């Protein structure tokens, strides 16, 4: 096994072009578990920790560009005010030690259907900034997840940053697990209201081969909400929203939960996050 240690972003891209089979390692909270448990040995590790360009975030035109090296802890403390959905999800990841090392980019690299950053990224309409020696492209988040633990990155590409629009309305994240810390989601749900353009964003986690949105539920709710007068949606509308979220999912039975449980829980989480979001919108 080789250990590649580029110190600039240009060197990292060159290294990835030259060794497309090398496994990038950022926080290592997925990569090292696999190596320690001997679940697979990469031909080389490409350490991105020394690349200073990845350690920062910035904002322009209402978009946050979060460098691939920014930890969950920093997302929570530095970005929580503007990206509440992503910050809430980040707070539920692992433990403090895991959040100190783990990154949103690593979550995207692993592309597990259960990854906690995916629902808020889907709900807010994020973009993945992928780069290679050939150039940069922005991948809309909905096109990034291509299968179970697979993503749209080409073999020579690395994630430079995740771009997330500043929240323009309430955002909530909900996750089911057996305890409050250190759990992989049984299933999860993210909701974002966009009152400015009267749209709704959703993200379903751990209830389909990939994280995905619930487009029909989004359209239905956007048409149903009283954006102007801010009266509460009817109980029937709330129930229907939950049903449409459930219809967008296709979960399986596995060690963490059954298909039926996940479908039930998704409807509950959809209704609850809507309740929280609407209370915030009304200024309660």
């Amino acid at each position: 096994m080789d250990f590649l240690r580029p110190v600039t972003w240009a060197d990292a891209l060159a290294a990835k072009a030259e060794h497309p089979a090398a496994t990038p390692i950022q926080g290592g909270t997925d990569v090292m578990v696999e190596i320690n448990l001997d679940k697979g040995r990469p031909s080389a590790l490409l350490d991105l920790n020394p690349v200073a360009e990845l350690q920062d975030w910035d904002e322009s035109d209402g978009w946050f560009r979060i460098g691939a090296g920014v930890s969950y802890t920093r997302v929570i403390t530095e970005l929580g005010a503007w990206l509440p959905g992503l910050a809430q999800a980040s707070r539920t990841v692992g433990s403090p030690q895991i959040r100190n090392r783990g990154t949103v980019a690593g979550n995207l690299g692993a592309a597990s259907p259960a990854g906690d950053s995916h629902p808020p990224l889907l709900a807010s309409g994020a973009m993945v900034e992928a780069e290679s020696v050939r150039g940069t492209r922005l991948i809309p988040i909905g096109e990034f997840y291509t299968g179970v633990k697979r993503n749209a990155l080409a073999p020579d590409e690395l994630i430079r940053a995740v771009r997330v629009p500043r929240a323009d309305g309430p955002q909530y994240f909900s996750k089911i697990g057996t305890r409050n810390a250190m759990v992989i989601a049984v299933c999860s749900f993210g909701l974002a209201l966009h009152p400015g353009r009267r749209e709704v964003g959703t993200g379903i986690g751990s209830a389909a081969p990939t994280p995905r949105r619930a487009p029909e539920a989004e359209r239905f709710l956007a048409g149903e909400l009283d954006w102007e007068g801010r009266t509460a949606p009817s109980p029937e509308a709330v129930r229907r929203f939950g049903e449409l979220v459930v219809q967008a999912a296709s979960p399986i039975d596995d060690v963490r939960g059954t298909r039926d449980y996940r479908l039930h829980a998704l409807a509950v989480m959809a209704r609850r996050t809507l309740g929280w979001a609407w209370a915030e919108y009304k200024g309660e």
Partner: protein
Amino acid sequence: MRVNVTVNGEKLTAGDVWPGESLLYVLRERLGLPGAKNACEQGECGSCTVYLDGTPVCACLVAAGQAEGREVVTVEGLADGDRLDPVQRAFVECGAVQCGFCTPGLIVQAHALIAATPGVPADAEIREALAGNLCRCTGYEKILDAVRLAAARKAAP
């Protein structure tokens, strides 16, 4: 490969390191620092917690090469010679140590919490901060006592 790392203030070099090896392995097996414990090697138990550039992390999930040129502080680095760190002293006094396997990781994590919190952290804060450190023996109550005691002494020495 070789890895140069500052551990507890001392510049050390580990030789013959396999690139897939963890920082925990290097500390324990190559540098003779068995304080950080190896229990799960998958980030679940926290018994390998060390400071990496001032931030507590699971040493089992840091690739050895990622520690190149960086500063690590292990539980061995907290005491000043024979004088225990106040967090260590509180653990002893409160009976927060039984078999002791979880203790080094808990001490480092509790040390970081207390350093970052003015006054005595609320119980919910302590529980959240220690959520990634498992103890099979104590039932945690004495550990919470120890953290409160160490924090109270720091707040009002």
